[in-house]
């Protein structure tokens, strides 16, 4: 009986330990949130209808894309080095279920957003507005997908 009571935890927060996959999701979520948060706040919305706004968007998106790639690569490499034992683990049934549920949630804003943007073209919307709305739709869908997956991992 005493042996049962003497069982100790290896660490106090074993339940809250994150898997490698969950950490990668956090990195993707935070990187996207910061990068596109900056983009949508810094974009000159007053001139969005002008032809020059399209090139402004292009000029902002190139460093932003490169920044995301570099940040994700560095963070993933650091996490992979720190979690070597988990890197080659295949996706299990729970990971697949979480992935599908997240994707299923993101499917709706993606489809609705796509049709809304097609409808917007008929109203004669400026190319920069169209670009930003399609981009916003993609970003919102991805944040929803990754956010839902993180939430499902946390829920256990």
């Amino acid at each position: 009986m005493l042996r049962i009571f003497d069982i100790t935890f290896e660490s106090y927060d074993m339940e809250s330990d994150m898997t490698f996959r969950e950490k990668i999701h956090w990195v993707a979520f935070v990187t996207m949130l910061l990068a596109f948060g900056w983009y949508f706040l810094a974009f000159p919305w007053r001139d969005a209808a002008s032809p020059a706004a399209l090139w402004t968007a292009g000029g902002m998106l190139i460093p932003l894309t490169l920044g995301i790639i570099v940040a994700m690569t560095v963070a993933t490499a650091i996490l992979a080095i720190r979690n070597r034992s988990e890197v080659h683990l295949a996706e299990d049934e729970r990971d697949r279920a979480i992935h599908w549920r997240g994707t299923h949630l993101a499917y709706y804003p993606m489809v609705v957003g796509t049709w809304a943007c097609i409808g917007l073209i008929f109203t004669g919307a400026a190319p920069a507005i169209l670009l930003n709305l399609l981009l916003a739709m993609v970003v919102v869908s991805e944040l929803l997908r990754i956010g839902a997956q993180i939430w499902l991992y946390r829920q256990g």
Partner: protein
Amino acid sequence: MTYKEKASWLMLVAMVLAYSLYFGLIITGHPAGKSLFAMLWLFGTIAATQAVVVIIGCIWLAIEARKLPRARIDERDRAIAARGTATFYYVLLTAMIVVGVVMPFTEPPIKIVNTALFGIVLAELVGLIVVVTSYRRGWHG
């Protein structure tokens, strides 16, 4: 075949026929490739016809499925549907990045609309192909 598999085949065949016609006409110089309203009219007619055919077909398949011993949707059907949805999502995501972030710099609105529609159709077709091949290959999640 289960009801879900038959319905997926029906949607796949209806989509291939309907949108081969639509994009075939666009490629051969139909006014829908140049004017937004001609495009809206042609796409609306073809999409509505396809939807009516699929709805009638699904109702007929559902009635037929009631005679089968295992008519209810099970865990495998749900897993296959989720796999198809995930594939659809990634194909549409890629298509929308091309349409929304690359094409506004170089292409006119009518071409952007038709490419966006092609992206939706392609994503749906790839999703349905994943579903029917999963059934055929005995995939179970």
